[in-house]
């Protein structure tokens, strides 16, 4: 199965047999990969049709809104809490990050980097909110209400007292190095503790 690169990076880091909460699990692609690693993996997903597909695949997924429902989970009930491509849609990303670090001993967060050169160029030269391959939806339709950059995220992690345990960056499907990541990365994955 072809796992999205940020999800593949996360799946590669999770130790077999871990307890994992996948927040915004979509159709369960990461969950299936982690289940193959004998992980005890649970999901939260807001879209009913996605939840239905997950349940039909034998996955344990609760339909809900991560902004509200993460509070229901006990402290440190998971080894990892995963938030993929969802932080920028949260009503309060800072609070969601707190919840993530409360529920999971470690957390993975992936997001589209708003400071990628393509986005910068679109705004600088076009003068309009960028519509790029990483951010393909117009400003009025997008679910991304809190755009974030690699540098912003590092600041937030620091402000929340979270340690950054790992960073992975991608240009399209392709992994790239750390150098100039805030300019060169379309997507970023962070591991926090």
């Amino acid at each position, binding site marked *: 199965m072809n796992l999205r690169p940020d999800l593949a990076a996360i799946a590669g880091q999770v130790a077999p047999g871990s307890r994992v909460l996948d927040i915004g699990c979509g159709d369960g692609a990461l969950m299936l990969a982690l289940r193959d690693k004998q992980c005890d993996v*649970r999901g939260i997903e807001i879209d*009913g049709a996605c939840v239905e597909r997950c*349940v*039909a695949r*034998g996955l344990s*997924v*609760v*339909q809900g809104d991560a902004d509200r429902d993460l509070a*229901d*989970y006990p402290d440190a009930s998971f080894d990892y809490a995963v938030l993929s491509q969802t932080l920028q849609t949260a009503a309060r990303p800072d609070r969601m990050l707190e919840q993530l670090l409360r529920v999971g001993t470690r957390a993975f967060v992936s997001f589209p980097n708003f400071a990628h050169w393509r986005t910068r160029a679109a705004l600088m030269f076009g003068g309009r909110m960028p519509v790029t391959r990483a951010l393909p939806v117009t400003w009025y339709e997008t679910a991304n209400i809190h755009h974030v950059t690699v540098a912003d995220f590092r600041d937030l992690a620091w402000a929340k007292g979270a340690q950054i345990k790992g960073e992975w960056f991608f240009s399209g499907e392709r992994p790239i190095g750390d150098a100039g990541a805030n300019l060169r990365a379309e997507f970023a994955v962070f591991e926090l503790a």
Partner: protein
Amino acid sequence: MTFEPQSLTLPDPLPLDGGGALADARIAFETYGELAPDRSNAILLCHALTGDQYVASTHPLTGKPGWWQRMVGPGKPIDTDRYHVICANVIGSCLGSSGPASIAPDGAPYAMRFPVITIRDMVRGLVGLLDALGIERLHAVVGGSMGGMQALSLAANWPERAERVLVIASTSRHSAQNIAFHELGRQAIMADPDWRQGGYYGGDTPDNGLAVARMAAHITYLSEDGLTAKFGRNLQDRPEKSFGFDADFQVESYLRYQGSGFTRRFDANSYLYITRAMDYFDLAEEHGGSLARAFKDTPARFCLVSFDSDWLYPTAESRHIVHALNAAGAPVSFVELSAPFGHDSFLLDVPALDRVVKGFVE
């Protein structure tokens, strides 16, 4: 009632939450599909308030198809080519299991001498049946509405008995509004002069009261949008209003038909006893006030399903259960399905429900 349901008598007296025990409790049941040699493929289906064991076979009194025939059968989401499905009439009911219409040891019907029972008592009876059938561990327990309460009660009180617990359109406790509607129905039955303190067996039965109870309850099973779509303000077989109290409107005619049809298959005293059991249901109360504690260390996987148009047991009730299961660390799935039919959606044509049921059960 002239039919011979398949049944067995529990070898031991059935202890009851209200005190005492029910001796010689009889449990009527139906099974579908072959039991595997290792007895690992049994699914217990729990029926709702006015349901019965005829989940996928013709009802002996009405001649109608089973109440969940669309879900249960060969090649259906609960596939009887693969699973051995057991469905039993709950105690307190009237389709062959012990209830108020059963004959007491003194040779007369119990009527109101039948002990008041609870959902947990019903489940205790079902567990007794499983013991008698030699089924130690269920592949799944599945129930909608009151059946869901039984599934939850089984999971909380006999946690080793079911690997999977599927609860559809149900609740962990009866709300004030739920109790209020049930009390309306009970008062309608008890206000019928033919009820005679429950001692009507052998004479005229309190059909009018039972029909009113059913009509009131039936409204709670539907949605406003569903009623509007089905009937609107349409008149029943007449060009204009009669300026009388006939069933002028189609919806009136429909409710009367539902009410009178029900009296032909259901015992009024059973309706009193089962609605009481539902009103007494509060799973958290049984477990020191904490629903999470009810599911502490449960080894089962859970799936809860609600419907967006169900105002009897709305989505919030399912979420409340999901919250407790999360707190208990149990693997749980939950989905709110969109369907126009209100509470009754779980019995009707909702293809997404079929997919969820099939996916979870397998």
